[in-house]
């Protein structure tokens, strides 16, 4: 029973740590970008301030919208929280829920979130939001095969089909197959950048509706609804970053606290890398992004082939 108590404590501690620390990632990214541009930049905790400010405000709903528009932020947030329950949030902590094949649920929780965001954008009846929705779905349709292929490559490599199994096995045999892991890591980083609307796929800072993708879909939200959306996107970033870190940084000392700290440090380092990518790269032309995603899918397909034909 004592073991079970420790297990529960660790699972909850990791989950709570992810929920609390997630809004720090956008702060780190923005700080890195500011340093590169020679500016002071917003405070690291800016997203926390924004969230508290938005939660205190009231919401305004357009008269053309229906229940879909109101449901979307809540569904998105709950889907992202559901995702965090499936993964060992701080690496060393066990996942709250784990079963065989939960990698599929992981991918489709994001699918539900995206479906509702896109439906809500169409629900507003704004032509710009419809355009953003169309782009979002195009990129998502191409990013999903890449993501699922790379998860399958990881599953084959570690002979595990649950996320917890993959996390544990990749620390037990770190860099068992370095080329495959490198391919998967590159694919996952491309998918992370695309799914989380970062440069080179999308620019989170853009304020021109014609070029916006994700930001344009949430233009009509205000107050707590917008806070939910911002928080959900921070959680999504945490979920993707933790898979990349689990694969690329399989360092374990055996102590729960140290391992968790290493993992959180890894995620923040990942945020710095995203910041560096955003500062040093221009955004791709819209028609080049599908090509990038197809290339990412090809990389993960190669990784999967290599693991399948091993030995």
């Amino acid at each position, binding site marked *: 029973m004592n073991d079970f108590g420790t297990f529960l404590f660790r699972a909850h501690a990791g989950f709570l740590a992810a929920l609390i620390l997630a809004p720090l990632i956008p702060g780190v990214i923005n700080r890195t970008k500011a340093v590169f541009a020679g500016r002071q930049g917003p405070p690291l905790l800016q997203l926390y301030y924004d969230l508290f400010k938005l939660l205190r405000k009231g919401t305004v709903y357009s008269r053309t919208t229906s229940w879909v528009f109101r449901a979307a932020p809540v569904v998105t947030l709950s889907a992202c929280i559901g995702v965090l329950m499936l993964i060992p949030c701080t690496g060393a902590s066990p996942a709250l829920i784990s079963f065989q094949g939960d990698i599929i649920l992981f991918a489709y929780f994001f699918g539900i979130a995206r479906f509702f965001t896109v439906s809500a954008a169409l629900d507003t009846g704004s032509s710009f939001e419809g355009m953003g929705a169309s782009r979002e779905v195009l990129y998502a349709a191409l990013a999903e095969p890449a993501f699922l292929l790379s998860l399958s490559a990881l599953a084959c490599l570690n002979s595990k089909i649950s996320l917890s199994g993959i996390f544990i096995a990749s620390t037990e045999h770190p860099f068992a197959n370095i080329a495959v892991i490198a391919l998967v890591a590159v694919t996952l980083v491309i998918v992370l950048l695309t799914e989380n609307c970062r440069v080179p796929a999308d620019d989170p800072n853009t304020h021109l509706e014609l070029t916006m993708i994700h930001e344009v879909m949430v233009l009509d939200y205000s107050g707590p609804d917008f806070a939910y959306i911002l928080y959900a996107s921070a959680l999504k970033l945490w979920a993707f970053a933790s898979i990349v870190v689990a694969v690329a940084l399989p360092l374990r000392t055996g102590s729960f606290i140290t391992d968790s700290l290493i993992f959180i440090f890894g995620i923040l380092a990942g945020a710095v890398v995203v910041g560096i990518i955003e500062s040093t790269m221009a955004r791709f032309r819209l028609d080049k992004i599908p090509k990038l995603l197809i290339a990412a899918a090809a990389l993960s397909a190669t990784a999967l082939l290599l693991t*399948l034909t091993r030995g």
Partner: protein
Amino acid sequence: MNLPDSIMIFLILTNLSLLASSRLNACIKTVAIQGIIVGFLPLIATKCPLTIYSYLLAILIITVKGILFPYLLRYTLRSVDVRREIEPFIGYGASIIIGVIALIMSFWLCRHITFPEPILSYTAPAAAFFTIFCGLFLIVSRVKALTQVIGYVVFENGIYMFGSAMLIEQSFLVELGIILDVFVVVFIMGIMMFHISRAFDHIDTNKLGESEKKG
């Protein structure tokens, strides 16, 4: 994961990037890198003691494929003044997908062939077949004569990879003959392309029959 496997995977990636890239300059660079790595392969692969001939051959292959070909191709690129392949018969996205299918096919093919000799690594024959397929695919799917020559060089790289991966006894004379052939092809194609572009104002091979603007 040992060194030969990682090299093979890197070669597979160079092929995929050739399929995805529209800039001829980038293609030439990629082929040069591929040629240099392929040139080193026999030195890594061989189990028997290295003779002076294997070193000579490696140096020769690396010089021709890594320095001479890129130089000739770039010279042609400048003289015919094209920068990129604008409208290939098969687009770049589709090319990558076909590339992945070709990769699956190569792995499938290598499962069904029993190799007589101990091979360098399990990925090596598949990577060699894939390189050959990519070379052929570049030749048939691209419009510009220059890309087709690049495809031919990739094709030859694949054959050479297959030879060194199978640890086939390197016959100095045969390899010398092949490299001379390829060199002559690249050299002559350079001159031909210059004349094609002089006569037609472009090097699109699919339009050669259409008109003779200046002639």
